[in-house]
């Protein structure tokens, strides 16, 4: 067992760092002020394969393995978590279900424009009365002669304001127990985007409600087969969790780095505060949590690449990474004192961005449920 990153993963990390430090970092604080990402930045990212991370080369992607994927998301999120969120959601729950469950024709039709960044992906499950409990979904798909007609409202959709290709989780109008995932494109009549949410963190990401009013789509826009909804949803979430874990890890890493350099520079009582044992304890705790997070995450990613079950391991990674992001950013603000509570310092943004990683893509409580179920169903 080798715990050192291989040369490829090291080079992937440097490649993303170089781009993120020179192109994203200078904009990150400004992006936090209003929803949306600068067009220039998105254009620069397109040819570099950021929108087709794990898409096979023949469909226009980079063909990365899952550890590389986790590294890319970590490094973007280390600079801008909101952009990291856009990229991970687009790639994991936006594109991955089509690659996994889509027919050859669906892959040919929908994936290349997404991999090129021309169409941003979104996945919508959450509704006013359904989130952790997928059984509460009220969006319905009515079968017609030509295909399906979708009606319903989805809320808190990441990338909602900029999405081009949307995966919609809906139930059959005749059998509420039967769910499917449908591919809806932005220009479909009856589809519209609601107001952008005013959120605590991730403020650059245009999270929005999406409305489907008699949205008619062809029959071949049903992903996979009718009735596969729950299976697709759960698989998408497993994959999505690797991305969100990586995102949380990136936030924690950024907060940690800021804390170390601040602790070395900040003087109190005529010495750098890094000389104080309390601060040292904080830094040590942060480092341990971050290291453990990364190991858990890379294990889950490696299992996924090997085609082995990784659901519980992804849940563990997501649970631990997001908890780490919250506690580490909390300590980072504490180390920065009053400055940490000011928008002048990036740790204030990291602190706000971190919390939601414990909520979306399955709350921490849901992750524990997934982990516990795995423990209790193991043969004894």
């Amino acid at each position, binding site marked *: 067992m080798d715990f050192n990153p291989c040369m490829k993963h090291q080079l992937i990390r440097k490649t993303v760092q170089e781009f993120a430090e*020179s192109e994203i970092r*200078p904009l990150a604080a400004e992006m936090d002020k209003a929803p949306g990402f600068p067009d220039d930045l998105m254009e620069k990212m397109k040819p570099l394969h950021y929108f087709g991370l794990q898409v096979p080369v023949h469909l226009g992607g980079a063909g990365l393995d899952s550890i590389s994927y986790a590294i890319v998301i970590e490094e973007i999120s280390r600079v801008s978590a909101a952009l990291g969120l856009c990229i991970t959601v687009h790639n994991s729950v936006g594109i991955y279900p089509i690659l996994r469950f889509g027919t050859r024709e669906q892959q040919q039709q929908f994936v290349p424009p997404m991999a090129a960044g021309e169409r941003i992906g979104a996945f919508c499950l959450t509704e006013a009365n359904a989130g952790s409990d997928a059984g509460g979904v009220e969006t319905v798909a009515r079968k017609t002669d030509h295909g399906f007609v979708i009606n319903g409202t989805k809320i808190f959709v990441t990338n909602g304001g900029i999405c081009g290709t949307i995966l919609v989780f809906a139930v059959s109008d005749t059998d509420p127990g039967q769910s499917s995932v449908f591919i809806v494109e932005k220009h479909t009549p009856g589809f519209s985007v609601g107001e952008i949410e005013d959120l605590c963190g991730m403020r650059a990401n245009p999270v929005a409600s999406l409305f489907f009013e008699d949205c008619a789509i062809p029959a071949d826009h049903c992903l996979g087969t009718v009735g596969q909804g729950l299976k697709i949803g759960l698989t998408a979430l497993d994959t999505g969790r690797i991305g969100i874990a990586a995102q949380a890890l990136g936030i924690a890493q950024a907060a940690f780095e800021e804390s170390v350099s601040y602790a070395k*520079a*900040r*003087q109190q009582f005529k010495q*750098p505060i890094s000389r104080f044992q309390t601060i040292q304890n904080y830094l040590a705790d942060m480092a341990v949590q971050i290291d453990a997070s990364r190991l858990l995450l890379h294990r889950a990613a490696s299992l996924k690449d090997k085609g082995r079950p990784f659901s519980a391991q992804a849940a563990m990674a997501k649970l631990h990474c997001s908890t780490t992001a919250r506690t580490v950013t909390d300590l980072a603000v504490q180390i920065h004192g009053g400055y940490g509570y000011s928008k002048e310092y990036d740790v204030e943004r990291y602190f706000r961005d971190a919390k939601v990683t414990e909520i979306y893509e399955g709350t921490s409580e849901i992750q524990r449920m997934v982990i516990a179920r795995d423990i209790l169903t193991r043969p004894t």
Partner: protein
Amino acid sequence: MSAEKQIWVWADYRNYFQSRVTLQILARATELARKNDAVVCAVVFGDRVDEYVTEYIAHGAQKVYVTDDPFLKTYNVESYAFLLSALVRRFQPETLLVGATRFGQEIAPRVARQLNTGLTADCIDLDMDDKDRLVQIAPSFGGNLVAKIITPKARPQMATIRPGTFQELPHDDDATGEVISVALPDNMPAPRVRCLKSELQPVHARKIETADIVITGGRGMGSKGKFKKLFDLAELLNAEVGATRPVVYANWVSHDSLVGQAGKHIRPKVLFSFGISGAIQHTAALADARFIVAVNKNPNATMMKLADVALVADANQVCTGIIRAVKERIRD
């Protein structure tokens, strides 16, 4: 080996009025030569170069080797390197010094290779040890440190010298020197590189190297946008703006503004240093700054230790504060 020890200075007279490096090296060579009774010689190549020969004698050259030929009219690195190597083989100087201009940095390595000798690049000082060996003092290990280098066996001892390192001697009209004309060798190879065009570019009137006030900025300024504030301050103070390497590489300013080992050497009366930690390759170029004001959040930064006045604060905020203060205090 010839009876007398000679220190050679290859004369780079192109753009004579801007580039004084040859005169600067002659001055240092004169000091070194006193230690072991060596003879300071200039080596001049070109077409009708009499006036330069006179100049070099007036600035310290005791002997001048001259090859004056229309073939040498334009600077050509291959021909010049061939000729210089041939002269060295014939007259066997102990030491050969070349100014670290771009042309100097092209010709010197080729001559060193042809003569199988060593070459220390971009020296910031030269000395002579008690065994009459040339001590070549140059930034090393990525500019973080300074190394003392010698050439124990191979001769000549070669070094390129950073322009601006030494002070030239005053022009002495009464100085005399021996001029030795050397004919172009018969076996000069035909040049393989053709120069189609060579135009002297107009030089900016004011240069950072000679400015009385210089404002330098590092990554601590925060961003490209915030860095621009330094230019506002420069305008007010009648100053020039310089930058560190990370800033230049991040494209906040052009390479022209680089202050440091690979960039400009400055000697201002007052230096304002904003958000610079002080890597040695940067600070090596500041040795002649008379009064240094440094601003950094980190009081332990090297730059802060070099300062006469160190302000522990955010560089960007202090810059804004100084702009305001100057506007308030200036009397027209």
